């Protein structure tokens, strides 16, 4: 029996039963932009960057089950334009200043913005006031850059079995919190071996004192665009 397939921008993509469009595309090394999906974690479908058109209708590819014969569009001017707007909103909602950010070059938000040729933030900056949590001896949390993808929440809860992080409140007020009475990372059992310590796609969960040890220019996405990189396996960021 021949393998089940669908098409992505005209290219044939094989899939196994139960795979999402995103999973099948990643297995076939086809790039669909994404920020809140990680292969080692249950999809969350919140960032909407992976939105594709399936038979003419918008849907999040990280949650949509692949089916034989689907015609999926992803790399189109229309969809990329929508993705750029989503990215621009993420940039203005937080405080992202790439030239002095230690995650620059390793940041998926930045790399995706380059990939999709986002030139300016376009919208007015919110400049939210979000103090950092430096209480933990080995890790720093710089909430200024949180895009609320919930990868750390899922990693800590579902893989590390710890529940260190949570999203609190709703809508525009949603924010990432640390599950401790004090609200401080030092008062949790978070550790450097946790998946949650390595899963943040931006520059929130940072190993202390190592910020700029790798020169800008020699980092992951400085060398290859995000679309060209091998897809991360479960447990890697």
């Amino acid at each position, binding site marked *: 029996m021949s393998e089940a397939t669908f098409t992505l921008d005209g290219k044939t993509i094989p899939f196994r039963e139960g795979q999402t469009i995103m999973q099948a595309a990643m297995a076939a090394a086809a790039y669909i932009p994404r920020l809140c999906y990680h292969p080692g974690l249950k999809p969350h479908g919140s960032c909407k960057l992976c939105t594709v058109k399936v038979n003419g209708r918008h849907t999040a590819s990280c949650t949509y089950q692949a089916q034989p014969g689907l015609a999926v569009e992803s790399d189109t001017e229309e969809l990329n334009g929508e993705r750029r707007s989503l990215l621009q909103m993420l940039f203005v909602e937080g405080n992202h200043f790439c*030239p*002095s950010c*230690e995650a620059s070059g390793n940041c998926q938000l930045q790399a995706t913005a380059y990939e999709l040729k986002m030139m300016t933030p376009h919208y007015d900056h919110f400049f939210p006031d979000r*103090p*950092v949590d*430096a*209480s933990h001896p080995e890790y*720093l949390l*710089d909430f200024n850059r949180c895009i609320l993808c919930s990868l750390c929440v899922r990693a800590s809860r579902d893989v590390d079995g710890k529940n260190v992080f949570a999203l609190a409140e709703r809508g525009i007020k949603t924010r990432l919190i640390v599950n401790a009475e004090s609200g401080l990372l030092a008062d949790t059992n978070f550790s450097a071996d946790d998946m949650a310590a390595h899963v943040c796609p931006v520059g929130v969960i940072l190993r*202390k*004192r*190592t*910020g*700029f*040890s*790798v*020169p*800008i*220019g*020699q980092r992951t996405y400085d060398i290859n665009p995000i679309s060209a990189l091998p897809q991360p396996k479960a447990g890697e960021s």
Partner: protein
Amino acid sequence: MTHSFETAARPENLRRVAIDPLSRVEGHGKVTLLLDENNKVQQARLHIVEFRGFEKFIQGRPYWEVPVMVQRLCGICPVSHHLASSKAMDVIVGAKQLTPTAEKIRRLMHYGQILQSHALHFFHLSSPDLLFGFDSDMAKRNIVGVAEKYPDTARQGVLLRKFGQEVIRHTAGKRIHGTGAIPGGVNKSLTVPERDELLKDIGQIVAWSRDAVHLIKQMHNQNSALYDGFGAFRANFMSILGDDGALDLYHGSLRGRDADGNILFDGMDYQDYTALIEEDVKPWTYMKFPYLKSRGPQDGWYRVGPLSRVQNCDAIPTPLAEMERREFIDYSANTPLHAPLGYHWTRMIEMLFAAEMINELLHDDDILGTDLMTSGERAEEGVGVIEAPRGTLIHHYRVDENDLVTMCNLIVSTTHNNQAMNEAVRQVALQYLDGNEITEGLLNHIEVAIRAFDPCLSCATHALGKMPLQVELLDNTGAMLSTFTRSADNG
């Protein structure tokens, strides 16, 4: 309006404001000349915008971010801020002695910065005034005019600057917003191809730098009355110097001299700079006025930068620059030269020194090494000082046990030179103000005096046009007598 900024509320409370809305003319420098009852210029006030907002901004940030973040402070000498803050953070992480590779890579970066900045200042910004005359046709008095009349000089200026930028790129990773220096060391050394690329041109760079010294020396010699007298005023001067009193722009201890050249203090550890320097505030500006505590606010102000350094040191440790230093000292007959235009000559001597230092470092295999980092016992407080192109640059931080910055104090070169620049402007006004009217001629001369200090004001480094500048004249009651404004584009 004049009245309102004379009596601005307690400036201590306003220090954090980045932009003084009253004294700032958008994109302009502004100078106020105040007359006494005999209509003699009694005071000159240069209004400049300082970067105080940054000191607040950096609080609560992790210390390792600071050397990268501070480059936002100043688009004009980011590398100097990068290195001064890295040196302060070395103290925080207990890196008492960097590895030879780290130390030499940082020095290379710094001398690259000196070279590019001095070349930019001399060739792009000042040579038009010096070559064509302060009052010459505005349309010609720019680098384009220089390129027409003196094509070799202009070309060399451009290439000298470019070379300095290449040194920065290879050592800092990028030409701007580099990350080369990190607390405790550097994150990269040079590869052999990078080194060889720089080695290929360095001989030419040294030769051109020497030509540049000769050019300014010749101008000085040909018109010594103008060059020695223009805006001249006596002042104390200060810089850091290396061991044994030799010129060292990267590291050393503080030495200060009085206007006669007598040593006031020497070998002072800059970690204790607060014992030496106090910062005065004035009601008319948020910019501070540092002075030497021992001499008090009246007499304790001082000058920094090339003119101070070259006269403060006992020797320059590279042969060609040392020869030039000796000629300079002979010219001034062994007493300190206090002429603002002497900045240009000494600046070019320093550029030659930087070129020779780069040459030396490029022949040192340590710059190819792999041992990049060191650390030791953590400290809570650290001061980093460097001789930036424009003068002594002080970065001072406190960092808490969670690694966050709790205090930051910066004294930038232009702040050290604050009173000195006012004094130079006053002298020029005394020499050139005719009657009660501000003329374009006076404005041109004031501009030349300010520019000699190479202040880090965006208006002063206006690339091709002339400095956008407003000069106003007030009588002893504060009433405006005359004003003259030149914008960047109408000039």
